[in-house]
C-alpha cells in the first residue's frame, strides 16, 4: 500500500508508527529520491507500505511529485492511503480529489486529528465516507495506538476494488473531460483514467508524452483535444488549468460545507502565531535566528564538555589499566596495537560522542518544531543575492550535522541548478565529523574566553564561504533561471521527546558504527603504517656517545658547549619514537607530501593525519592520537591539545583549521554527491575545487598571520 499526501501532513510519522521501525531505506531506481518501504502485520496478513514523497498535486513539476504520480498511476498498489493534515483540510482534500480521479483505491487518513479537535473542528465522518465513497479515519500519528483504525480500514479496503470516482466537477468541465476521454479511448484501447484525460486536456507535458508514445495517430487526437480545450476556455473566459483547479476546490468546498459540524476556531493557532510575532519579526527575526544558532553551538560546546571529560578520563583510565596489567614483554606488537592503534585512535573520536549527540539534538529540535521554515523565510532574500534559494538553507543546516543527509536533502529544491549549487558548496558547512577536530584544535590555539566565539566563527566562515562560492558558481558554471519560492510555513509543533531522542540515537548510532568500522579499520591501518618499518639504529642513540647529546635529569642546562643538547631520559625516548615514526610508511608518505604542504606550515606528521582524514574527517583526530601516542614512547594519553599547542605555532593552527574546514570532503560525501547529481564530474569538481580553495585560503591566512606578528 502507498502512503501519499501533502508535505507536513505527518505522513512519515504515520509510516513509522505503522512499521514500528521495520523499514528499509533505499533509492528509487534511476534517480536519487529516497524510497522508504516497510511492513507490518495485521490480522495475520503482512502489509507492505511505501512512504511516498510529499506532493501538493499529482503533477510532474518536481522529482518528488513525479515519483508520487507514477507510483499512484502505475504502481498497482492495492490501497493508497492519503494522509492529510486535519487542520488544513481544504488544500489537502484537493490532493485527495486528484488521487480519486486517478482511479486509486483510496483511504482518507485525517492525521493530527488531536490538534484539529482541540482547535474546535468536528466533522461528520459517516457523511464524509458516503460522499467520497471511501473509508475515512482519524488518527494521531504520534500515538501509534490510534493507527489501529487505519490498519483496519486498509485491510478492508484491500479486499475491494476502487469504486468510481465521486468527484464532481462543474458542468462544463465534466463535459470537456468526457469528450477528451472519448477521444483518447478511440485512439488508444484500454482503460483511460479520468485523471489521465484531465492531464491531457490541460496539456501536461508528461501526460501528453505518455499518450503519444505507442499511440499511432496521436497528433490528430491531440489536436482534437486542443480544440476541446480552446472551446472550454472561450466559453468560460478562464484558462483550463484554473478551471480544473477551481472545480476541485469547488467540490472540496461543497463537501466541507456538508460535513463540517464546527470549524476550526479562529484563535486555534494563537500560541504559534504569538511565537511568530517575535521569530519572524522584521527587526527581531534575524538576531533571534543568529542567537538560536549560537545557542545550539554553545550547548554543544559547553554542556557537552562535561560528559566529554568523563569519557576522556574513562578511556584514559582504561588505557592505563590495560597498560599496567599487560606487561610490556608479552606480545608487544599486539599490546601496541590495542593501546596505541585502537584505544588511541578510536578513543580519540569516541570521546566527542556527547558533543555530536547534543548537536544532533539541537538541530533536530529546530527542524521538527517548524523553526527551520521561518529561518528560510528570513534568509531567502539574503540567500537569493548569492544565487541560492531560501529553501537551500534547510539542507545546509542539516549539513551541520552530517553532509550526507544534507546533500540528500537538496532534493527539496525543485530547480536543478539550485540543487547542484547547494550540493557542491554544502561540505563547507562544517559537519559533525569535524567537530572533534575543532574541539581538539580550538582549545589548543585559543584562550578559554574566546573558544565558543572561535567555534562560532569557524562555522560562520564556512557558511560565508559557501555563499560566496555559490554566487560564483551561479554566475559561471551553473548559470540559469531560478526556481520560484513557494514554501509552506507549518505551525509550531513541539517535537515529541521520543521522536527527538530516537532521531538522535539513530544518528549517534551511525556515528558510532562509523567509528566502529571505518575509523577502526583506518586506525589499525594507520597504526600499521606508522609502526613499520622500524629503524635499525636510532640517531639519538648515536649522538649520545658522540657527545652531541647529554642525558641529564633536567637541572644542569647551563654550561654546555655549543651544539650540545641536554635531554631528559623521557625526551630521549620521545626522540627515539619520533624517529621510528619517520622511518615508517606513514612517515615516508608524510615526508613526500611535506614540501607540498609546507607553505601551510604543516609538517609530515600533520600530512599523515590529513591523508587519513580523506576517508573520514574524524580520522584526523584519531590519527593525531596515534601519532602522538607512538611519539610519546609510552601508551599514555596525555592531552593531545597541549601537545599540539606546544608543537605548532598559531599561524599553522589557523591554517590547519581552515584547510580542514574547506578542503578534501570525505569519501562518503563524494559518493553521495555523485549519486545525487548523477555525474562523476560534479563529485570531482567538488573535491578538487574545494581542496584548491582550501589550500589557497589556508596559505593566505598563514601568510597574513606571520606577516602581522
Amino acid at each position, binding site marked *: 500500500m502507498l502512503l501519499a499526501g501533502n508535505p507536513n501532513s505527518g505522513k512519515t510519522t504515520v509510516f513509522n508508527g505503522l512499521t514500528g521501525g521495520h523499514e528499509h531505506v533505499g533509492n528509487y531506481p534511476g534517480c536519487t529520491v529516497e524510497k522508504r518501504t516497510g511492513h507490518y502485520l495485521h490480522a495475520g496478513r503482512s502489509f507492505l507500505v511505501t512512504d511516498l514523497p510529499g506532493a*501538493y*498535486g499529482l*503533477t510532474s*513539476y518536481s522529482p518528488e511529485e513525479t515519483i508520487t504520480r507514477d507510483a499512484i498511476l502505475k504502481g498497482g498498489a492495492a490501497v493508497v492511503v492519503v494522509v492529510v*493534515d486535519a*487542520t*488544513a*483540510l*481544504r*488544500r489537502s482534500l*484537493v490532493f485527495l480529489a486528484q488521487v480519486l480521479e486517478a482511479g486509486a483505491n483510496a483511504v482518507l487518513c485525517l492525521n493530527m486529528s488531536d490538534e484539529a479537535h482541540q482547535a474546535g473542528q*468536528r*466533522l*461528520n465522518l459517516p*457523511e464524509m465516507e458516503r460522499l467520497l465513497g471511501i473509508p475515512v479515519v482519524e488518527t494521531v500519528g504520534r500515538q501509534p495506538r490510534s493507527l489501529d483504525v487505519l490498519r483496519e480500514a486498509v485491510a478492508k479496503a484491500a479486499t475491494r476494488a476502487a469504486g468510481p470516482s465521486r468527484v464532481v466537477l462543474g*458542468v462544463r468541465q465534466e463535459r470537456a473531460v468526457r469528450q477528451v476521454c472519448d477521444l483518447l479511448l478511440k485512439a488508444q484501447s484500454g482503460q483511460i483514467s479520468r485523471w489521465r484525460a484531465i492531464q491531457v486536456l490541460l496539456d501536461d507535458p508528461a501526460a501528453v508524452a505518455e499518450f503519444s508514445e505507442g499511440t499511432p495517430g496521436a497528433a490528430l487526437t491531440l489536436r482534437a483535444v486542443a480544440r476541446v480545450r480552446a472551446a472550454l476556455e472561450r*466559453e*468560460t*473566459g*478562464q484558462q483550463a*488549468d*484554473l478551471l480544473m*483547479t*477551481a472545480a476541485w*476546490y*469547488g467540490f*472540496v*468546498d461543497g463537501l*466541507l*460545507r456538508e*460535513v463540517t*459540524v464546527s*470549524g*476550526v476556531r*479562529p*484563535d486555534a493557532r494563537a500560541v504559534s502565531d504569538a511565537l511568530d510575532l517575535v521569530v*519572524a*519579526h*522584521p*527587526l527581531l*527575526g*534575524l538576531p533571534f535566528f543568529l542567537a538560536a544558532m549560537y545557542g545550539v553551538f554553545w550547548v554543544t560546546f559547553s554542556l557537552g564538555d562535561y560528559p566529554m571529560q568523563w569519557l576522556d578520563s574513562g578511556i584514559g583510565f582504561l588505557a592505563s589499566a590495560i597498560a599496567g596489567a599487560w606487561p610490556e614483554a608479552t606480545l608487544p606488537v599486539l599490546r601496541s596495537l590495542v593501546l596505541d592503534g585502537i584505544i588511541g585512535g578510536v578513543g580519540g573520536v569516541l570521546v566527542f560522542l556527547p558533543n555530536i549527540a547534543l548537536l544532533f539534538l539541537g538541530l533536530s529540535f529546530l527542524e521538527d518544531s517548524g523553526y527551520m*521554515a521561518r529561518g*528560510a*523565510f*528570513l534568509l*531567502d*532574500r539574503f540567500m*537569493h543575492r548569492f544565487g541560492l534559494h*531560501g529553501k537551500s538553507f534547510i539542507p545546509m543546516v542539516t549539513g551541520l550535522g552530517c553532509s550526507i543527509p544534507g546533500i540528500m536533502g537538496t532534493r527539496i529544491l*525543485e530547480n536543478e541548478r539550485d540543487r547542484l549549487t547547494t550540493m557542491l558548496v554544502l561540505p563547507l558547512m562544517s559537519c559533525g565529523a569535524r567537530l572533534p577536530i575543532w574541539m581538539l584544535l580550538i582549545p589548543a590555539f585559543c584562550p578559554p574566553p574566546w573558544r565558543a566565539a572561535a567555534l562560532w566563527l569557524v562555522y560562520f566562515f564556512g557558511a560565508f564561504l559557501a555563499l560566496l562560492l555559490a554566487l560564483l558558481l551561479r554566475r559561471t558554471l551553473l548559470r540559469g533561471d531560478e*526556481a*520560484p*519560492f*513557494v*514554501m*509552506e*510555513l*507549518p*505551525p509550531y509543533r513541539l517535537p515529541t521527546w521520543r521522536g527527538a531522542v530516537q532521531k538522535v540515537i539513530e544518528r549517534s548510532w551511525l556515528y558510532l558504527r562509523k567509528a566502529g568500522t571505518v575509523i577502526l579499520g583506518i586506525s589499525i591501518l594507520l597504526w600499521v603504517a606508522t609502526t613499520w618499518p622500524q629503524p635499525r639504529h636510532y640517531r639519538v642513540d648515536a649522538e649520545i656517545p658522540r657527545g652531541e647529546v647529554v642525558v641529564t635529569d633536567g637541572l644542569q642546562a647551563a654550561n654546555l658547549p655549543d651544539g650540545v643538547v641536554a635531554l631528559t631520559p623521557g625526551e630521549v625516548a620521545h626522540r627515539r619514537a619520533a624517529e621510528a615514526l619517520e622511518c615508517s610508511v606513514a612517515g615516508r608518505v608524510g615526508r613526500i607530501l611535506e614540501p607540498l604542504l609546507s607553505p601551510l606550515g604543516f609538517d609530515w606528521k600533520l600530512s599523515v593525519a590529513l591523508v587519513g582524514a580523506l576517508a573520514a574527517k574524524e580520522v584526523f583526530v584519531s590519527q593525531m592520537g596515534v601519532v602522538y601516542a607512538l611519539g610519546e614512547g609510552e601508551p599514555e594519553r596525555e592531552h593531545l591539545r597541549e601537545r599540539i599547542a606546544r608543537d605548532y605555532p598559531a599561524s599553522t593552527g589557523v591554517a590547519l583549521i581552515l584547510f580542514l574546514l574547506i578542503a578534501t570532503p570525505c569519501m562518503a560525501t563524494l559518493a553521495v554527491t555523485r549519486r545525487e547529481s548523477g555525474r562523476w564530474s560534479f563529485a570531482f569538481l567538488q573535491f578538487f575545487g574545494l581542496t584548491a580553495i582550501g589550500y589557497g585560503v589556508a596559505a593566505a591566512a598563514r601568510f597574513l598571520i606571520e606577516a602581522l606578528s
Partner: protein
Amino acid sequence: MAAVTLTPALEDYLETIYGLLRGQPVARVRDIARDRGVRPASVTPAVQRLAQMGLIRYERREHISLTPLGEEAARRVFSRHQLLTRLFSEVLGMGVKQAEVDACAMEHNLSSEAMDRLTRLFEFMRSCPRGEADFLPLLHGCPVFTEGAKCDRRCQGESCASAAVTLATVAPGIQVRVERVDAVGAIRRRLLDMGFLPGTELRVERRAPSGDPLWLRMDGFQVSLRKAEAAAVRVVPLSAPDGEDPSPSGPV
C-alpha cells in the same frame, strides 16, 4: 411547502438543532443551551413549542431529533442563512466573519420572494459564462465600490479591474481576495496547487526584513511567497482587515 410561521427565535433554535444533528444522532438540551449561550431552562419552552408544531421529536425529555417536517423547515432556514452570507461576503466583498453576523441579523426578516431572487442571483453567477469573468471583477475592480470613492472616470469606460492591486504591493495586515493569476509555467502550477484561485481569501501577514518574501495566511495553513511571484497574483483588498482565518469560500 407547509406554511409554518416561526418566530425568529424559534428559527434560530431550529437552525442550531439542525447544525448539531449533522454531527451526532440526537441533540441534547444542554448541547443546544451551550451552543446558543443560554441556560438549559431557557431552552425547554422553545423546544416544547417546536415539538408542539410537529417539527421535532422530544424523546425522554433529553434527546431531540428533527421530524421530516422539521428537517425541511430547518433546511430552508439554513440555506437562507447561507445565501445571505454569500451575498455579503462574495458579492459585496465583506469579510466572512462580518458577513455571518449580518446574515444572522437579517435572515429572519427575509421574505420568500427575496430569498427566491437571491437564489436566482447566485444561479446566474454560477451558470452565466460571463458572470464569473465579468460581473464580479467589474464590481470588485471599481474604486467606487471598494473604497467608496467618487467615480472619477479613471477607468475611462473600461473596467477598473485593471487597476486591481497585486499581492506584491499589499501592506501587511490586509485581507484580500484573489482575482486573477497571471503567472505561467511551474510557478503557476505551484500557485494553483497551493490554492491561489480567483475567489480565495487570504491575508498578508507580514514581510521579511527588506520586504521580501511575503508571509501569507491562507485557509488552514501559511505560505511564504517571493515578491516577484506575488506580483503575478491580482487581488482585491477587502474593506476591513479581518483578524482571523477566513472560512472556506471557494469560487462560485
